[in-house]
């Protein structure tokens, strides 16, 4: 069936079986790479995107349920030459090893900062709990989220100055 999805602010029409999880529509129909297949079970968060501003597992959401909903992927956080604040913070902190989990990390963190621009350390850790990283980049990811929060709240004027 034909389904219209609102992805990163644009209406996109796809032809897919209604039960197809959003992850495959994003990757295979729309050619977006940010959301990754990790487990297909909602256990690892590699596929995290935002749905109406909330972080969700795209591997669990059938596309038929998503018409009229606002979907944002990591590709939607930036303009061509202006990366989003979180992306800048991850770059400054060099917060990636293999990076396979990172787009999902950014999308989950964005949902937190959108509703709570000054989260505590405990709030950040609790919020990021659903997303797995196997390389052990967690400390840098946490630093990057704090840096982004500081940048957004004006505590950090400069984007640079990471180690």
């Amino acid at each position: 069936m034909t389904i219209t999805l609102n992805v990163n602010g644009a209406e996109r029409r796809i032809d897919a079986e209604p039960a197809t999880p959003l992850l495959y529509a994003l990757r295979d129909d729309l050619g977006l790479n940010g959301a990754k297949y990790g487990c297909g079970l909602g256990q690892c968060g590699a596929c995290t995107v935002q749905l109406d501003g909330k972080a969700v597992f795209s591997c669990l959401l059938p596309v038929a349920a998503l018409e009229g909903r606002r979907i944002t992927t990591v590709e939607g956080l930036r303009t061509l030459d202006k990366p989003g604040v979180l992306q800048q913070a991850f770059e400054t902190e060099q917060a990636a090893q293999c990076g396979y989990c990172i787009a999902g990390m950014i999308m989950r963190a964005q949902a937190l900062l959108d509703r709570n621009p000054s989260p505590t350390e405990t709030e950040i850790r609790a919020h990021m709990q659903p997303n797995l990283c196997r390389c052990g980049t967690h400390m840098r990811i946490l630093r990057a989220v704090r840096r982004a929060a500081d940048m957004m709240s004006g505590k950090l004027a400069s984007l640079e100055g990471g180690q």
Partner: protein
Amino acid sequence: MTANTATRLSRRSFLSGSALVVAFSLSSRAFGQLAGGGEGGAGPAVVAPTLPGSLKSSPILDAWIRIDADGEVTVFTGKVELGQGIRTALIQVAAEELDVPPSVVHLVTADTARTPDEGLTAGSHSMQDSGSAIRNAAANVRMLLVREAARTLDVEPAGIDTDGKGNLTAPDGWTLGYGPAAAALSLHVEAVANAPLRDPARYRTMGTSLRRVDIPGKLTGAPAYLQDMRLPGMLHARVLRGPSFGTRFQSSDIAAISSLPGVVKVVRQGDFLAVVAEREWTAITALRKFQDAPFVRTAPPLPSGDVAATLKALPSRDIAILDTANATAPATLTVRASYSRPWLNHGSIGPSCALARFEDGVMTVWTHSQGTFDVRRVVAELVGLPAEKVHAIHVEGSGCYGQNGADDVAADAALIALDMPGRPIRLQWMREQEFGWEPLGPGMLTELEASLDAENRIVSWKHEVWSNPHNNRPVGAGGVIAGGEIATPFPVPEGKPIPMPEGDGSRNSNPLYDLPNMRVTYHFLKDMPLRVSALRSLGAHLNVFSIECMFDELARAGGVDPLDLRLAHMRDERAKAVMTTMADRFGWAGRPRGDGIRGSGMGFARYKNLGAYCAVAMEVEIDRETGRVAVLRAVAAVDSGQAVSPDGIRNQIEGAIIQSLSWTSREEMTFSPDRRTSFDWSAYPILRFEDMPGAIEVHVLDQPGLPFLGTAEAAQGPTAAAFANAIADAAGIRLRDMPLSPERIKAALGAI
């Protein structure tokens, strides 16, 4: 140290036109080591044994470096990016010794049609093998460019310098770009061993934390992974396998699966089965339907005893690692202890993936295997093509920590592609297939016995280790799953130990400490009750854990400080420097000591006694009600020789600390007699954000000009020991069997 001095002298000697050439000393330590740490196949033949790193097997310069007329530099490496940042580090090495900005260096990673074969990207060997080769190849190229400029100007080479921007310069202001200079000479010449290296005091790129070149794309959704590749006409495949290695589905209604809408074909080759569809979700739906059938076990039942009982029941080949005899004072105190580790999963976040296309008689395979050239060998044998008709290309995948499903899935994809000529096939394993079929990190057991004299000197040291082979890397079709499934299966090759000094199950069983009366024995167990192969650090994880726990057990029994006991038995100055730096930064002297809840512990090793030196200390707090341990902070010091990217080293060590904490405190592959039962992240939990340490600090001890020492696996053992030692310090409980889980800690606390 001498290498530093020699390096500087050799450059000056050369530039002054003197015939005196000081022997290049960087290669001496690495000589005798095996490409890729002895994992995988024999590797390419050594044809130039006096050259450094992989120049030994590929000595011709243009195999490594080409410079086009515009001065753009292409560098070729047989190593691959696994998420460890090697791409950026190798670019830095090339840029430094060529004396060009890193931005003009384009790096090509392993490709059987384009790059040198450097064996596997494994064993923390990439800087030693490829870094050393590229460093010296670049120095050779720069030397030839300088000579060419000198010839053009009719001056001595000493009168020519480079400006760091890709220009040759003379004192009178004359400049010539590398592009035109390179056009006038051939790089198709053999490297010399003594090309002058740049003076560390003048380094522009090495030693700086150049930002990783691959990170921006990964943050913005650029196609950064093999999983993101899309080729025109590409079809999606899934392999149809039982729940874990050694099983298959009893009866499957192939016709029903073939007739599902969107299914293009079910490929069958003996017991090998795969579904191919136009759409990925269709292939997954077909797989799920197939999995409704009951499965049967096709291999002997999985073991039901604990690690120790399972391993000790296997026939052993005993290999003497160390056997020394010295006169000492009499022993006054002896400690005996046994340590173990269960089977572990690699747990890459992205399940393994490959693309393959069979066209015009050539099989092209895109793979994230650590052994691109081995993939070619495996696929050639599996599909019956000559090696020159198989082209294997490395593309980065999800993080890799040893032999996961990458090699198997590449073989699977090729087998499918063979059956569907002209159509590119993309195959990704499902999460449960990665857990169920990948080779596990082997379960291991050690037994140690050590004695102190009345002065708290160690007077004897005995270490026995039981392990399956850790190097079952496929080098032929028998090493991959599909090779055992096709109609005429290939036999599984017998596992072999990796000889010391690298070792496999024996890795780091030889203490770096200065100890008398050492008896170290490797009980090599060739029969593998579970499918196993290399997991980051191989046997070093348990061997270092065992040695470093025993040091703390001796220190406690002898009433001495654990750091003092270590320093008193260490002669290697760099090892001492790493330990004392760690101790200073951690505040070891004033550390929180055991009060039942809080405590501190340390661990140290030099990886393989050849790679990086690493010491780790941590402070823990135990929740006595739950047995959960919070790591309040961890401090590491590391000496990787010449640090190419200090932040790259910190990133690797931070990651190794967290991964080792996860292995050591939580992880265990579970199984029943008929199958593996850890098939997802709920049945195989790893550490998450709320389990993370409060802080991790990594201090890099740079050694300008000294050889590169492999870093990526250096912290696995020290971290594991520091964790156990901190728990013992905090609460007086000594846990020796991994995982040191909350349940076991609570049980141990209850017994006090």
